[in-house]
């Protein structure tokens, strides 16, 4: 079915009835990252238009160095990371003024080590991850106060071993992915209680085989990524029943249109398509390229960059 998924992504946005595409303009940069990454994982990156995308990204870098989701939108660390990820796929980061990107990211760090998403000051461990991932891809991790950054992320560790968005926030698989990814890049994975967190993460698996993001919530294919990648990072991916999860992910495909939905029978979108395919890659699906669990990018791209974020065994 991979060809069908590739066709879905390649055609995304070009259909006439595209209100959803319009509505999602505020995250366009991430949308492009999702599409390109999944195409690359399926070996079909060449079907996308590198030049147009590079030009688009260039137009999205602001004077402050940050990158916005789309033209005419404000810069944000989320879209700065997506832009750098996209350009890394193309080995082309110099489309951006890299020094200014670094300066922008550095400027988002707060006194307590946390990172704001943008100048309006929302704090979230997601942004800690975006900051270090961006800098790691640019080889500029030295630009921030790493010790303080680590201190803040660790202060978000909860009694159940998980992490939330700010200190005290409920453990959530998406935030856990960001924090374990962060700690991997920071070389601080030993600070995680791998057995306790691994238990919490494998508890996400429901009888259907799918994974949820918090206790008593519904499964969603994107959690196949957030949970699975986290487990891979902390060396406990074998604690999931792989064949049941695989069946669940495959059931989220739409055989007619291509693409993956959040759960079987729902509407597909590029976000869930990437995470469904990436999840399958982590499960060892032969026809899909190996994906790096920390950065959610093809391993061969990181190989080229010489990036080997830590994983626990």
């Amino acid at each position, binding site marked *: 079915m991979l060809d069908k998924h590739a066709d879905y992504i390649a055609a995304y946005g070009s259909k006439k009835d595209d209100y959803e*595409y*319009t*509505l999602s303009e505020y995250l366009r940069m991430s949308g492009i990252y999702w599409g390109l990454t999944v195409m690359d994982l399926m070996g079909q990156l060449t079907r996308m238009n590198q030049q147009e995308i590079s*030009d688009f990204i260039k137009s999205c870098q602001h004077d402050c160095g940050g990158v916005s989701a789309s033209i005419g*939108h404000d810069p944000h660390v989320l879209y700065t990371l997506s832009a750098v990820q996209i350009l890394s796929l193309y080995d082309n980061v110099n489309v951006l003024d890299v020094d200014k990107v670094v300066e922008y990211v550095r400027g988002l760090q707060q006194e307590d080590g946390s990172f704001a998403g943008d100048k309006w000051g929302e704090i979230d461990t997601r942004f800690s991850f975006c900051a270090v991932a961006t800098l790691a891809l640019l080889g500029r991790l030295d630009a921030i106060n790493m010790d303080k950054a680590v201190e803040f992320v660790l202060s978000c560790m909860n009694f159940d071993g998980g992490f939330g968005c700010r200190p005290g*926030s409920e453990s959530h698989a998406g935030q856990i992915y960001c924090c374990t990814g962060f700690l991997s890049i920071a070389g601080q994975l030993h600070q995680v209680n791998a057995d*306790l967190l691994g*238990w919490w993460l494998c508890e996400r698996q429901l009888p259907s085989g799918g994974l949820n993001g918090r*206790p008593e*919530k519904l499964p969603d294919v994107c959690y196949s990524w957030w949970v699975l990648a986290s487990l891979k990072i902390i060396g406990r991916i074998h604690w999931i029943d792989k064949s049941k999860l695989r069946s669940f992910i495959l059931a989220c495909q739409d055989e007619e249109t291509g693409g993956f939905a959040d759960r079987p029978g729902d509407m597909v979108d590029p976000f869930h398509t990437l995470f469904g395919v990436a999840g399958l890659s982590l499960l060892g699906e032969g026809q899909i390229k190996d994906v790096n669990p920390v950065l959610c990018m093809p391993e061969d791209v990181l190989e080229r960059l010489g990036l080997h974020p830590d994983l626990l065994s």
Partner: protein
Amino acid sequence: MSGIEETSNVSSEFQEERSEEEVEEEIGYEDPFRYVFYRDRKEWADLEPVPQDDGPNPVVKIAYSDKFTDVYDYFRALLKNDEKSDRALLLTAEAIELNAANYTVWHYRRVLLQALEKDLREEMRYITAIIEDQPKNYQVWHHRRMVVEWLNDPSEELEFIAEILSQDAKNYHAWQHRQWVIKEYKLWDSELEYVEQLLEEDVRNNSAWNQRHYIISHTTGYSDPAILNREVQYSLKQIKKAPHNESVWNYLKGILQDLGLSSHPGLLEQILELKETHCSPYLLGFLVDIYEDFLENTLEHHEEVLSKALELCELLAREKDTIRREYWSYVGRSLQTKYGSSDSSTTTSMNKTHPLIEQPFHRISS
């Protein structure tokens, strides 16, 4: 009004030649249900709408709904001119209604609120309505927080958040906001009561259990044995109500792990009692945790306790929690390796055990 009488005397042909807006102006009223595009509004004629620009070569062709295009073309025009006006503020509301996730529109709205020195109480009413409509959105909650900060007035917050949580008791954004308000303005006093009420309604609400931990950690703490025991007994009571409840078991483990699960007086007995009437895979797993803690901290009865623990791991892997059999096998192997005597036969394991045995899994460094 005289306007109405005049139009009724005008010939029908003449009327048809005029635009709807002209007629409306003469009549002196607007049909409140008909949307007028910004491009057709006289009072906006001074602005040049800015169409969507997807870059030098648009990545893909885009189709928009007319109204969306119209509003956002004018939004972009305002941004371009850096216009700070009441009409701009009104337009941001329309843009938000069409797409409340568009963070740039929210930024601009805040800039306008400050530049125009708008009534922030009115803005609170506005954001309240928006959140009621679209409660699962980062931007709306961040905006509310900013307004509360500017006003330095949290007096409506707890009630408002409770209202939102009554519609979805696990709304992650709502809980973040609630934690911030409580911490920032020191509104701890009645929160435990609120949490208990939520747990009465749904004992499986993980957010509420997390909040319970949050409140107690920031107020009395768990170091007072009376408090700790109160929480242990409260948890056991909830377990009786609903034995298959991840959250309560994670909470119980969480509050006891620093001191050690086996150190709490009478707990093992209570759990063994519950095992007869309210068993669950969580209970069995918790027993394993207690036994493990015991093995870690005492020197006697190792063989007996170990064998009980291993038996449970096997039962869980084989029958009670098969989807996590790999985890239970791992736990069994770890226990065996760490506490087994050298001449007891191990369960067949093809997996290597690391020379550096991982720390007992319930321990976190304080």
